[in-house]
């Protein structure tokens, strides 16, 4: 592929702060037409990346939320037998009961394949499904086609979608699966990066407040015995809460008082721990 024909490179989107490394990986994956597997702590923006790519490249985004009980065929297409049964029994619909194709609905992967334009296909939380699902799915994504056995028809992708796969697990996926993906692990953003992220979300907020909040936030993440550490999402919500509170002054954070802790700590045991350790002045 020469420079001229290379598709536009991905450069981040309005609500997403992309780091250099990840940008390169996204571009390499798109050029190699390989799925990109993203791992990392919750709240590091794995899912957001797909949204950002879709936005910046002007492609529609199709999201497949993987569930533990999911079978591959559900992601490809669905044969709505119940409706057909119903139609054949009562015959009051406009569909032609003898035409099975009228009862085939495309699943998320199917939609990405038949779409008129190139799409971004986000396969979210792949680790929830079992290994067979993962391997079979990659076969489909590799070959860019699948069969609808009910009507003996092969669906071939019109455009190879940009595939982003996310996994929360620290555990490895199967080897054949990994062999077919590019891989990146998104680390939790460091305080400087976090400031940039917040800057994107709250363009009008003043630097001092953001600085104080980020500082407190990272100290809170270091409290001991916390099961679910607050992540970016919690921080953004927390800032939103602080912003809407007219009585809030950034100075109280320096005094070690943290309002709205409940937004940051979602488990009662964690909240209790945090309150206790704050009370002892340990942050």
């Amino acid at each position, binding site marked *: *592929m*020469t*420079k001229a024909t*290379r598709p536009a*490179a*991905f*450069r*981040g989107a309005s609500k997403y*702060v*992309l*780091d*250099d*490394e990840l*940008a*390169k*990986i996204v*571009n*390499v*994956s798109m*050029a*190699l037409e*390989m799925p*990109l*597997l993203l*791992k990392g*702590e919750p709240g590091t923006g794995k899912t957001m990346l797909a949204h950002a790519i879709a936005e910046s490249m002007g492609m529609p985004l199709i999201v497949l939320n993987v569930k533990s*009980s999911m079978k591959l065929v559900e992601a490809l297409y669905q044969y709505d*037998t*119940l409706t057909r*049964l*119903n139609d*054949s*029994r009562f015959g009051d619909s406009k569909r032609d009961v003898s035409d099975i194709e009228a009862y085939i609905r495309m699943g998320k992967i199917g939609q990405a394949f038949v779409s008129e334009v190139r799409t971004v296909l986000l396969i979210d939380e792949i*680790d929830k499904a079992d290994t067979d699902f993962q391997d079979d799915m990659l076969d489909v994504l*590799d070959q860019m086609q699948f069969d609808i056995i009910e009507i003996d028809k092969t669906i071939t992708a019109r455009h190879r979608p940009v595939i982003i796969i996310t996994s929360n*697990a*620290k*555990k*490895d996926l199967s*080897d054949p699966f*990994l*062999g*077919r*993906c*590019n*891989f*990146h*692990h998104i*680390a939790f953003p460091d305080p*400087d*990066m976090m400031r*940039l992220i917040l800057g*994107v979300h709250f363009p009008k907020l003043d630097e001092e407040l953001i600085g104080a909040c980020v500082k407190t936030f990272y100290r809170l993440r270091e409290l001991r015995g916390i*099961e679910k550490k607050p992540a970016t999402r919690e921080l953004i919500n927390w800032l939103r809460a602080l912003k809407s509170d007219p009585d809030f002054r950034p100075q109280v954070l320096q005094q070690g008082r943290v309002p709205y802790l409940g937004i940051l700590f979602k488990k009662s045991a964690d909240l209790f721990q945090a309150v206790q350790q704050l009370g002892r002045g340990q942050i």
Partner: protein
Amino acid sequence: MFVDFFYTLRDRGVPVTPTSFLRLHRALSLGLIHSLEDFYTAARAILVKSERYFDSYDQIFAHHFRGAELRDPTAVELTEIARAMLDEWLKDPGEVARALGIDEEKLRGMTPEELIKYFLDRLKEQTEAHHGGNRWIGTRGTSPVGHSGNHPGGMRVGGQSRNKSAVKVALERRYRDYSQDGPLTEHQMAEALKRLRRLTPSGPRDIVNIDKTIAQTMRNAGEIEIVFDRRLTDRLKIILMIDNGGWSMDPYVDIVQTLFHYARAQFKDLKIYFFHNTIYSRVWADPQRYFKPEPVEEFIRRDPETRLILVGDASMAPYELIHGNGAIYVDQKATGASIDRLKFLARTFRHAVWLNPVPQEEWGLTWTIGVVQQVFPMFELTLDGLEKAVLHLLARH
């Protein structure tokens, strides 16, 4: 060509496959990589598939490319890689064909010798075709190291620029936390233990069973009757016995606590008991080992399919384990040696493991560990060990 680099990665235990190596070369030949920095990132994304190996990768990268001259591959190296490709090809022809962008059919008819030659030619051709030079990196700058400028088609976006050479980035070892020998976190435990479940139908009937519905409808001569099934839920029973006494377990309190918290949150049918060093006539349901004793014999009434997980360092004085009156507590009526109790538990529960927080290489130093190991399959309380233990617990015996 980086054949050395590839083999160093392999030698150091980073699982890189020839297929992914070829893919990296495709990325190189597509003109996607313009600097060592790009190479660092792209090679990691393509070759390394788990953040656990990122740290090793960083170290090897830094070692390999610090001041290193990138030179042409020697003939021997080319043959080596061609051979590795052949192996891969025999395993999965389609995959290699796709990675190389060649026609699978075309290669089907070739003999192994022909294939090797074909791969060799391919590799040489790529070496030469690549912007005519003898360097694989750098379409414009030729210095392989320290070329950290961004190329014009830049992908620079918001965020800070990392104005460091790739080697420096690698030397930072940002991924040390994720390396395999790191301590076990709750999250990792969750992932390892998640597989430990057995799904059985229970709860309300709210899943439509299409096959039965159709069959039933046929039987009713077309009068629709929808058949519902129960959904699947986890019904696995687990008994966790934790050694929580004595100074010998002190160094491992944190890790065992993590396991304990996680297990309590995750498993619906979980019973936790405590013991000190080893098991005599009873275990306790309370951590103080005082209020709620439970005679060991009683466990025979439990479902034998229950998974028994013992956590302890299995380190004690030999007589505690072997001697009939070994109990170190006066109030424990000694009725037989502790080792017999352990054997009793192992007989009662076919699926049992012992998790030991002591690093495996030290097991040989403690005599009692060896003895307990003969009774229960013992695994290290690390991510790897935990995964092995889970596999063992799920296996049919």
